[in-house]
């Protein structure tokens, strides 16, 4: 997966953060989340991940079952 960088902006460091973005040649614009929304985003990702793992496990078990059945038939 692509690596992303999180910037934390407070009322105190906002100016510094935007100046640094400009200095690095990055457009001085950021998409923002509050601390609570960030927490929810992290939890949402974890839930999606968990669902993927569960689904993969179920598929793996079905594969094990049906492939062993095919071996028996052969």
């Amino acid at each position, binding site marked *: 997966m692509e690596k992303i*960088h999180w910037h934390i902006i407070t009322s105190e460091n906002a100016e510094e953060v935007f100046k640094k973005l400009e200095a690095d040649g990055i457009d001085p614009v950021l998409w923002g989340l509050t601390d609570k929304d960030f927490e929810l985003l992290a939890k949402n*990702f*974890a839930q999606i991940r*968990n669902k993927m793992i*569960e689904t993969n496990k179920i598929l793996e*078990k079905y594969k094990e079952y049906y492939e062993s059945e095919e071996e028996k038939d052969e």
Partner: protein
Amino acid sequence: MLGIRLFFIGLIATALAGGGFYVFKLQKDNAILKANAIKMESAISEQKVLIENQEKDFKAILTANAEMNDLVNNLKKDLQDLDKRFNKKNRDVGKLAIEKTKVIERITNSAGDKAARCMEIASGSPLTEAEINATKKSEINTECPSIANPNYIPY
């Protein structure tokens, strides 16, 4: 006199023919019964194989269910641990970020990288040697140890 003789001869002949037919019928019935018995035995052995297979399937389903339950419980624990990281002892991540902006930014980016790796693993990416061999807290992927570090036992 001749009539009586003929009557008895007829009677004996009829009795013999009747007996012959009866024996023939018994033989025929016996053959049918034997054939039915063979069919029954074959059906019973087929049923036995079927029951054995059903028992095997049932055991396999129970094992798979137990494995799924373990997995779901471990994943739930990962989610609870994530919640703890945000809210342990009434922790306010927002306030912490104001007080220690750089530290929280570094922690956030590190956790973000780990979470991305968790998504890769969940999508089928094979584990690295380091992930497999990780047994210490400092070595594990704290975002999803249950899938990233199979040899890690929480302590």
